[in-house]
């Protein structure tokens, strides 16, 4: 079985967030990690590999620096890494991203595609299902458990008040939740292998059946009006120890003509 896992390098929310003048994220200037839902998707793929045997390819679109997450994935046990990178692909929204990834996937062999449910930077949960639409594949989102049954996949899908048991014939696409599993660590030997493994790099010209109007910032219907980091609130004011706190606050509100 051949599995392709789509992963994304996202800003580490522990570090600061930086923006380009056009409102998109300045990814080159931030500390980054593998998106948690994608990591769970990768772990699910690696467990299928452990149990049934599979070749796991990780695919990402991003700056050359995104090679880091591909190498991390290989150090965890993935076999191959594919980076889609090209200046004309930059500034893509979910539509342009899914079109691009679908264009790359048309070049790759797969029986199963796994993506994370959503990325912690955009939180849209759109790219996975959109890729499936572009490729004409069935999609099962929010996977909590994944099992292989012959030429089909059986997935327990998380739902608001319970779960669904869904079965789909391969090939299909699954989106994974970070609650799906506890991703494994890399191994030291895996790291040594990862830095030696050649990453396949694809550019605009390598994408199959992709129109220029559907890629990059120009091909993105979403326009970002404004983006900003969280604005820090000013320091709070402590009521003096000898004051009645309720009377003190009410007094302040009256002073400001709030009440």
């Amino acid at each position, binding site marked *: 079985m051949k599995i392709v896992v789509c992963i994304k390098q996202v800003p580490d929310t522990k570090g600061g967030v930086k923006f380009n003048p056009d409102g998109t994220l300045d990814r080159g200037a931030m500390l980054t990690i593998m998106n948690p839902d994608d990591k769970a998707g990768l772990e699910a793929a690696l467990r299928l590999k452990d149990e049934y045997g599979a070749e796991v390819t990780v695919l990402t679109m991003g700056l050359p620096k995104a090679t880091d997450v591909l190498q991390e994935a290989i*150090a965890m046990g993935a076999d191959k890494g594919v980076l889609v990178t090209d200046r004309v692909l930059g500034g893509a929204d979910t539509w342009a991203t899914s079109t691009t990834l679908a264009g790359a996937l048309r070049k790759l062999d797969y029986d199963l595609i796994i993506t994370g449910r959503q990325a912690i930077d955009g939180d849209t949960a759109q790219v996975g299902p959109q890729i499936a639409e572009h490729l004409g594949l069935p999609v099962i989102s929010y996977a909590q458990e994944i099992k292989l049954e012959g030429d089909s996949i059986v997935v327990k899908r998380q739902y608001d008040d319970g779960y669904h048991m869904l079965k789909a014939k391969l090939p299909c696409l699954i989106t994974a939740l970070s609650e799906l599993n506890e991703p494994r660590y*890399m191994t*030291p*030997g*895996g*790291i040594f292998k990862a*830095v030696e493994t050649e990453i396949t790099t694809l550019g605009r010209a390598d994408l199959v059946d992709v129109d220029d109007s559907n890629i990059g910032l120009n091909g993105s219907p979403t326009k970002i009006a404004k983006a900003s980091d969280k604005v820090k609130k000013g320091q709070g004011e402590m009521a003096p120890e000898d004051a009645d706190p309720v009377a003190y606050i009410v007094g302040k509100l009256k002073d400001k003509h709030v009440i």
Partner: protein
Amino acid sequence: MDFTLDKKYEMAQNLFREFAQNEVKPLAQEIDEQHRFPRETVEKMAKYGFLGIPVAKEDGGQGCDPLTYVMCVEELSKVCGTTGVIVSAHTSLCVDPIQTYGTPEQKAKYLPDLASGRKLGAFGLTEPGAGTDAQGQQTKAVLDGDEWVLNGSKCFITNGKEADVYIIIAVTGIVEKRGKKMKEISAFIVEKGTPGFSFGTKENKMGICGSSTYELIFTDCRIPKDNLLGQKGKGFGIAMHTLDGGRIGIAAQALGIAEGALETTINYVKERKQFGRSIAQFQNTQFQLADMATKVEAAKMLVYKAAMKKAEYQKDHKTSYSVEAAMAKLYAAEVAMEVTTKAVQLHGGYGYIKEYDVERMMRDAKITEIYEGTSEVQRMVISANILN
């Protein structure tokens, strides 16, 4: 000369750091207080290949190098000195001599289990009457048909009761060297469960309290003739060479403890307020931290250099890393003691309380100046080399 770490080492450092934070740190205080060997951590480390880092892939290891191994011990020791020494004693003192001196049969039999962590290793040289003075050995091995018969005892053995495979140094005869009668010393591989091999006292230690430190007792313990490691009579050289490697592991442990204490203290002094401001704003604190950080950095250079010299040795056996290992251990151990002592001082009264990590770190640091060759022995090794 380039001091930038290659990407693979950066990735390895991140891996060990993440593992240490998530899996090791939460247990550090508990295993110290309960004097409990962290078996669950050893199993997790085995799963991720931490017990066979510098072992070739064909022998079941990770196929990495001494620097990667050193970084592992360093990062583990930053949060728990006990966990650091479990890996160090296993890798440097048991796996390494089998890799270096084992026959193809011995390697095939022992390395895959040890490197994968299915089995844990230990090393027995020290005896009640023979520590630094290896010629004081009393444990004897006598060949009887197809078996060696071991009698005697070893003390202060790290991974003592928890290990499965032991490298044991014993006297196999008397030889004459330069007109003097000397004990002929040989090395053996002994497995747990061999009749006649038992455990004596569990040591109640000042630090590294989760480490299993035991006395090993051999009473007519019969092992196969083929379990002689290396040539008969070459045991002293094997032991000394093994300890050279071990010293790099302990130097990494000491470095890790010092780094852990420094990091903890940096965080603490920013939070702790006295006289209306954080104690980080006092010049005494700043100067103490500057000295601590500088010494830690110097220790790191020596430790990494020793690891890289060992890697050179693995490619070309004509080189030696003995002096680099001794310098790294001497310096890193003394820095660990100094930095942890200052860390406790900067914590004030809280530093003396067991709830605070620096209290444990200071106790853990002390042993690094003693085991696998005291600081005095390291000075002997270094001075002998420079005076030669």
